[in-house]
């Protein structure tokens, strides 16, 4: 019986992330607009966008192959599964043991692999520029992310996000390594989600875009899936940051309905806080040149390494 209940909660988490993801993006866009003293689109605009895209016909290039049509489904599915495996309102759910943090990073890598291939499929120069830059960014962001995982797992003795979340709820104390890991993780999250200063999610100015260039040829339902995947990815990174660095309130599997409800409420609060900070940060900073990005991500990698090193200096807990 318990396992059925657990599976239901897991399924609930799967749906929660899917339903919340567009809301988060809409919220970030709204806050950004308000900070610029604009009215901005309403909160539910991303949902409307998705619905509208689903109703539109698909325009395929003549040179598009089967990979181009399959890729959106795979990208969406992989990202969705990865997002659902991160503890959001409850940790230690039955399927969360299917993948640890390294596997979640690698799942996102699979999604990116498909996306970059789809960018090359039609054979246009903008698709190529996007894929090429995306892979350059990823080649530094992924190791940086893994170094952060490294630090956390050395500290918590586990690479499972659920175990890390439970560990961080305990008396951890202030640690330099954690601070460095947080900074590194935020830098990676910004790069991975194609936010300012790495990439501009709002631009369609050809030479400054990375993510948008890859999906230039997509339309209709395919584009809807890819947009949904990128909403999910933003939610995923915010959830990871929330579950590791502000783990308070996350319910542990089997604590019952009330705990889940508290967890969900606090999760919403954390998301809105994170979204607010992201919007403020994005408004305050300017986009950087593409060839400054390696320095930025290199710094994140260094922070991850430094965090690991400093772990050895800090006293034994």
């Amino acid at each position, binding site marked *: 019986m318990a396992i059925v209940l657990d599976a239901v909660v897991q399924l609930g988490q799967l749906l929660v992330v899917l339903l919340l993801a567009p809301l988060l993006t809409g919220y970030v866009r709204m806050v950004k607009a308000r900070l610029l003293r604009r009215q901005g689109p309403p909160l539910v605009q991303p949902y409307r966008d998705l619905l509208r895209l689903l109703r539109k016909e698909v325009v395929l290039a003549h040179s598009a192959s089967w990979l181009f049509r399959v890729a959106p489904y795979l990208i*969406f599915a*992989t990202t969705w599964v990865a997002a659902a495996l991160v503890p959001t309102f409850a940790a230690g759910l039955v399927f969360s043991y299917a993948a640890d943090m390294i596997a979640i990073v690698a799942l996102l*890598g699979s999604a990116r692999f498909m996306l970059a291939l789809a960018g*090359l499929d039609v054979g246009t120069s903008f698709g190529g520029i996007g894929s090429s830059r995306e892979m350059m960014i990823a080649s530094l962001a992924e190791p940086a992310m893994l170094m952060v995982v490294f630090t956390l797992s050395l500290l918590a003795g586990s690479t499972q996000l659920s175990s890390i979340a439970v560990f961080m709820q305990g008396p951890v104390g202030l640690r330099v390594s954690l601070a460095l890991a947080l900074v590194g993780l935020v830098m990676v999250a910004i790069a991975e989600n194609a936010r300012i200063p790495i990439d501009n999610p709002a631009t369609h100015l050809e030479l400054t875009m990375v993510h948008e260039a890859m999906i230039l040829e997509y339309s209709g339902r395919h584009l809807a899936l890819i947009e949904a995947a990128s909403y999910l990815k933003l939610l995923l990174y915010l959830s990871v940051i929330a579950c590791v660095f502000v783990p308070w309130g996350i319910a542990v599997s089997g604590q019952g309905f009330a705990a889940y409800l508290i967890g969900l409420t606090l999760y919403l609060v954390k998301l809105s806080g994170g979204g607010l900070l992201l919007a403020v940060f994005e408004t305050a900073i300017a986009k950087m040149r593409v060839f400054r990005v390696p320095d930025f991500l290199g710094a994140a990698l260094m922070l991850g*390494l430094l965090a690991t090193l400093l772990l050895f200096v800090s006293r034994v807990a």
Partner: protein
Amino acid sequence: MALEVLLWCVAVLLGTGVAAVPAATHRLATSLVYGLAIGVSAIALATAGVVLLAGGPVASTLKLPIGLPWLGAHFRIDTLAAFFLVVVNLGSVTASLFGLGYGRHEETPARVLPFYPAFLAAMNLVVLADDAFTFLFTWELMSLSSWALVMAQHRRPGNAEAGYIYLLMASLGTLALLFAFGLLAGASGGYAFDAIRATAFSGHVSAIVLALALIGAGSKAGLVPLHVWLPLAHPAAPSHVSALMSGVMTKVAVYGFVRIVFDLLGPPSWWWGALVPLLGGVTAVMGVLYALMQHDLKRLLAYHTVENIGIIFIGLGLALAFEANQMPAAAALALTAALFHVFNHSVFKSLLFFGAGAVLTATGERDMERLGGLIHRMPLTAFVFLVGSAAISALPPFNGFVSEWLTFQAILLSPALPQWSLKFLVPAIGALLALSAALAAACFVKAFGVTFLGRPRTPAAQEAKETDRWSLAAMFVLAALCLLAGILPGHFIDALAPVAQALTGENVPRQEQLSWLMIVPIAESRSSYNGLLLFAFIALAAWSATGVIHRWASAATRRSPPWDCGYPDASPLTQYTAGSFTQPIRRVFGSVVFRAREELRMPPPGDTQAATLRVRMRDLPWDVLYAPIAGLVGFAADQLNKVQSLTVRAYLTLVFGALVILLMVLGIWQ
């Protein structure tokens, strides 16, 4: 029993090789040789598989009265040998299957058919050998038969040079191994491995043996900076032989290293655990960076072999570090990760080389810049190549990810090591490993994207045809294995348990009885991975998305010219090429590692000349290590040239001087 079967298999292969010499030009020779090779290798594969799965510490030995009269030839099969025999024969079966189709396009079958079975036999024999003489003899046989296969198309530009460098490096490696066994056998001359195992070695001797094993086995496997021959020689051979050399022969080299260092040499010192992973990490990153700069599909794959050998050596080195500090459980994990990667790499590298071979037969091109759009003409090959690319890029749910994940788990155990330098070094190696995995993904986006996607860049690519059924069968078998080992890794890890048990005295906990076919290398609270569940989840999510979209969304699809921001260009030459794809990565890493410099020449305004961009890169290991040695040898040869034309008196003086010096040495020695 198993040993006899395997030796008979080897004998049949050798016989086939001999028989193929006169018969090679016959119409049916190709089918017969490859068909026989499939059958014999399949028997050998089954036998080795049975030995491995039966497990247990029992090893059977056999002594044949051939070779040196007072020594004979010793053969032995234990679980380590059985595992490597599985790798060798799995590669042989699929390569022969591929060869059934591919071999028909061979221009000069007489240059391939006799040596191919001999090569297979030699690789089996190296793994079975149980004394130093047999090991070295069969090792040399393996080198020479593969050299003959590399030289099969010796008139192609560059192949002769590749063969020459291969021969030089192979001789160097054998020489190093000769010295290593000489030291191991010692003054008493116990060349049988049993006698060597029973001896204890002093610190200096074992350090020198380690260095020699690294040179000998490392040069064959492709450790940086001894890798120079590999990307030249592997692509020069016919594609199924390239697959065998890259996927299997390098693994035999790894076997040689493991046999010498883990089995024969006795307990390691802790600094071995710093040296070997560092070499592995540097090899992994250098290999993938070299691969990124390549536009030749087969050479790119060969450089990826260098990368993966680096990953394997990271695992092996960690096992040494843990073993030196009496942490057998961690050592078993690291060793299992390395061996699992040995298996995985042999599977996906063979698959990728077969794919490259199929492309080569279909288009006659290895240069990616002249391909493109093959996914339309060769959809099946494109599909399996995609599976192989995802597997080698360590993407879940395929097998490459699992072994790299296990290596990471081993790295995460490093803080328990007592030495400070290891505590600091191993996380840095983890960063190198992560970097190489991410760069590998970039490299295979390039390899697959430029070769198979986009629009065809040449008429040859435009008129490509799907490859034959035999080749496709071989590739699909391997692609299925990539997925199978990725979603059911527990069974493969369990199969490796007796090997780890024999070498480290401990093994990774049994995975079979875990619920949901999960893998848990240390403890469930620490880390777990479930490829099957992930695969099912992804399939389920994709299926439900498809269902929802087909039910409610618009199904209308229209074909049109590409949008491309309103500037669709007619010529396929304006697509992103391999060179332009890697330009950002070249600017980030290449400017340091390869001293890459870009030179842009713009004609003055008003001039209609084309602008040119030249990229200059330097191969540092070559420039720093090999060029001076080559220069020195050339200088010495020039000097010695003068000796050719001396007077008789001068020659007599030389002989006399040599005699006196020898006598003096003898006198001083006593």
